[in-house]
């Protein structure tokens, strides 16, 4: 099951945010370069900066597709004739022996699917990303070192055309290799899985509960995913059973506690002639006592239409540890007064359906998060979700290629490689931490980072003060917090410069048998790729234009 919320990407908000960040960066760069030019060139400095900006705009406007094409073909030929395709054999070799290390029992087909799909997509990443990294970081510096570029820049070639040519050429080679190895990976999954697991390969298309509207923070009834406590009072979350990072919260059995999932806009998504809809859940079991370990914990759904005051309870079902449940809801149901109700006409009349989930085993708990319950629409073939998973790797590869080419415009091969690899590493591993530190990511609903920034943390370690205890108000505390405030603001700014590479990892969807949603995952990835590629290309262009190619 998925361990994160499905947040659709808002294109307009994203574009405005991008314009704001780029605008702010542009202002900072203009102020810095003008100051440096004044210091080094005197009063002609700002004029020089202006001339370069105008020349840059002209160069981009006059980009020649034929020249870009020539440079693209050159990069492709270079990659092929330098035997880049050898990476293909590395991939094949990995697959020859992969079967030795993966679980091979037939007992749990879902686990086998998860392991095999994760392995293939992870291997694809680990093989392809270094290829992009090395090709993009070494191609231009090699040309500069060998002085081949001298014969190019002394032709009527604009520097942006060189940057475009490299990106497109390397991108094309890497895409071709990814296409080939991705195809082999797919065949390998199909052939390696036992028949039982193979039949289960699919791409489920779920309807999840949408995220809460921004203004619903304080209005309990506005929330699309909310809780009722054991005493019947509204709650934002369930019970925390001890996890520091509380993605799921729990409801107590045999009490009034329940989780409420409100599905909206269903009219357009469920055909009117549907005879049954399918609810799938993956709740977590938390046992206070061992109980009958052979039996699961009982759960019951109640379908509710608040406007019509209709409630229809479904048959209770058993939730087992680490297992999902699928429940088919027939069109005709009985309400609490044993009257007939039509699922689509009565319960989902206004396109909204509330599902109340209750744990009915006394003394036990069920853990629930927003993506743990969803309505299923007709599945798509596994090939579709697999292709989208590979598309995520492709977007990450494009990002690395653009970043590598940009870095190679101002640094030599080893430095460019180190820079790009470091950005990638930070983007994968440190983004979450930076988000938590700056308060943009909640550790748990309503809980942000405690203990302050680096200096406050050092002080707390020395003084043996736990993060949850407030520091006494003193001059020293204010100084430390002031410095930390600056550092945290700097980290917040750095967050915009380092891309969040985690968003390209779509393997979790594919491995868990979900289709990759376009608006949540693919559109976000495409927008991020484009959003970073544009400024990086501009930086690469100016770096190449303003440097002396004849290194001494």
């Amino acid at each position, binding site marked *: 099951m998925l361990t994160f919320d499905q947040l659709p990407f808002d294109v307009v908000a994203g574009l405005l945010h991008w314009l704001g960040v780029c605008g702010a960066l542009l202002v900072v760069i203009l102020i810095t370069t003008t100051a440096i030019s004044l210091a080094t060139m005197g009063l002609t400095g700002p004029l020089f900066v202006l001339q370069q900006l105008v020349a840059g705009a002209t160069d981009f406007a006059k980009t020649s597709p034929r020249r870009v094409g020539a440079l693209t073909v050159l990069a492709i030929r270079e990659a092929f004739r330098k035997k880049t395709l050898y990476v293909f054999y590395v991939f094949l070799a990995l697959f020859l022996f992969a079967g030795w290390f993966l679980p091979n029992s037939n007992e749990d087909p879902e686990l086998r699917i998860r392991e095999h799909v994760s392995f293939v997509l992870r291997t694809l990443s680990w093989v392809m990303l270094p290829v992009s990294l090395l090709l993009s970081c070494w191609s231009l510096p090699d040309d500069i070192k060998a*002085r081949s570029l001298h014969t190019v820049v002394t032709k009527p*070639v604009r520097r942006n055309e060189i940057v475009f040519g490299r990106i497109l050429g390397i991108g094309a080679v890497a895409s071709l290799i990814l296409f080939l190895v991705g195809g082999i990976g797919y065949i390998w999954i199909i052939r390696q899985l036992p028949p039982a697991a193979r039949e289960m390969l699919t791409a489920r298309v779920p309807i999840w509960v949408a995220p809460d509207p921004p203004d619903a923070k304080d209005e309990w009834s506005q929330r699309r995913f909310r809780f009722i406590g054991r005493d019947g009072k509204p709650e934002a979350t369930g019970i925390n059973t001890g996890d520091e990072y509380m993605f799921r919260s729990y409801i107590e059995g045999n009490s009034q506690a329940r989780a409420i999932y409100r599905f909206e806009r269903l009219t357009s998504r469920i055909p009117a002639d549907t005879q049954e809809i399918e609810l799938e859940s993956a709740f977590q079991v938390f046992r206070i006592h061992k109980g009958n370990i052979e039996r699961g914990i009982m759960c019951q759904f109640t379908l509710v239409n608040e406007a019509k005051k209709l409630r229809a309870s479904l048959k209770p079902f058993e939730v087992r540890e680490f297992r999902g449940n699928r429940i088919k809801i027939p069109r005709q149901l009985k309400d609490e007064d044993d009257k007939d109700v039509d699922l689509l006409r009565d319960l989902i009349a206004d396109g909204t359906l509330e599902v109340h989930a209750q744990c009915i085993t006394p003394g036990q708990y069920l853990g629930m998060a927003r993506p743990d319950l969803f309505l299923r629409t007709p599945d798509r073939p596994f090939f579709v979700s697999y292709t989208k998973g590979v598309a995520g790797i492709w977007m990450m590869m494009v990002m690395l290629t653009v970043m590598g080419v940009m870095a190679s415009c101002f640094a030599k091969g080893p430095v460019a490689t180190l820079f790009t690899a470091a950005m990638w590493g930070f983007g994968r591993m440190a983004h979450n931490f930076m988000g938590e530190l700056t308060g943009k990511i909640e550790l748990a609903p309503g809980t942000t980072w405690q203990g302050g920034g680096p200096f406050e943390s050092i002080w707390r370690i020395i003084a043996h003060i736990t993060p949850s205890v407030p520091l006494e108000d003193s001059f020293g505390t204010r100084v430390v917090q002031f410095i930390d405030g600056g550092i945290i603001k700097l980290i917040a700014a750095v967050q915009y410069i380092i891309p969040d590479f985690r968003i390209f990892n779509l393997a979790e969807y594919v491995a868990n048998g979900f289709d990759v949603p376009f608006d949540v995952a693919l559109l976000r990835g495409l927008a991020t790729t484009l959003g970073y590629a544009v400024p990086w290309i501009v930086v690469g262009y100016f770096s190449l234009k303003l440097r002396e190619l004849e290194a001494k």
Partner: protein
Amino acid sequence: MNTEVVIQTRNLTKIYRDFWGRKKVRALNSLTLDVRKGEVFGLLGPNGSGKTTSIKLMLGLLFPSEGEVSILGNPAGDVNTNERIGYLPEESYLYRFLNAEETLDFYGRLFNMPANVRRDRAKQLIERVGLQAARKRQLREYSKGMTRRIGLAQALINDPDLILLDEPTSGLDPIGSRDMKDLIVKLKEEGKTVLMCSHLLADVQDVCDRIAILDGGELKVFGRVDELLKEQDVTQIRASRLSEQAIKDVEAVLTKHGAKFEIDHPTTSLEDLFIKTVRESAARPGQRYVPPGTTPQPSKSN
């Protein structure tokens, strides 16, 4: 004499600095010169004198520390100016994984030339530099001389008005060297301007109209080759098939006028002898030099 200036440098100076901005070496110091349209101009100097630095400054590969340079009326490195320039670097820094046809096609594309024009031009240039037999071989398999030839072909792909040649005869055998010089003369006849730098003085003397001699990054001598080399106080008389008596009469006349003189048979240049030998060998294969006193052996056929 055409007075239109094609290359103009004014106080052109280049100082190489280290990472910290400290001065490392002054490679070029206050170079001021003009190269006129239609002439072959030679930049001479020993190694490290600043010849290549000057060319790279003219091409925008390096930025001047002081002074300025303009090419065809525009600042160095201007994209539009590059449309009219051909450049042969010191080493032919071409893409070694391409073959001759691909190389010329690639550079032709950079000039936005249509495919049919590129094809015709590449064919014509490959013939001109004598690489028809090797046109499908990757440049990594080329000898140094062949690499220079394809380098020259790429410099001429756009039929440029101004050609900058850095050590054009370096690595070429005497015949290749002669071909290169003939080509430079032909380019001049076509009205093109050629700037070449070399430390092979004979080459420069053969083809250049004007020269500049650099040493230690500074311009030492500048002017027309014939004027710079002319010895005003020496008179040369050349005559063919003079009899012994005629030589004695000439000696008598010169003695009578009190001239200091010497009479001798002139020698040809080694380059001329070499070219004559190779051409005769091609015309009459199998003919060999047999040292005096030895018996010639019949040639073995392969």
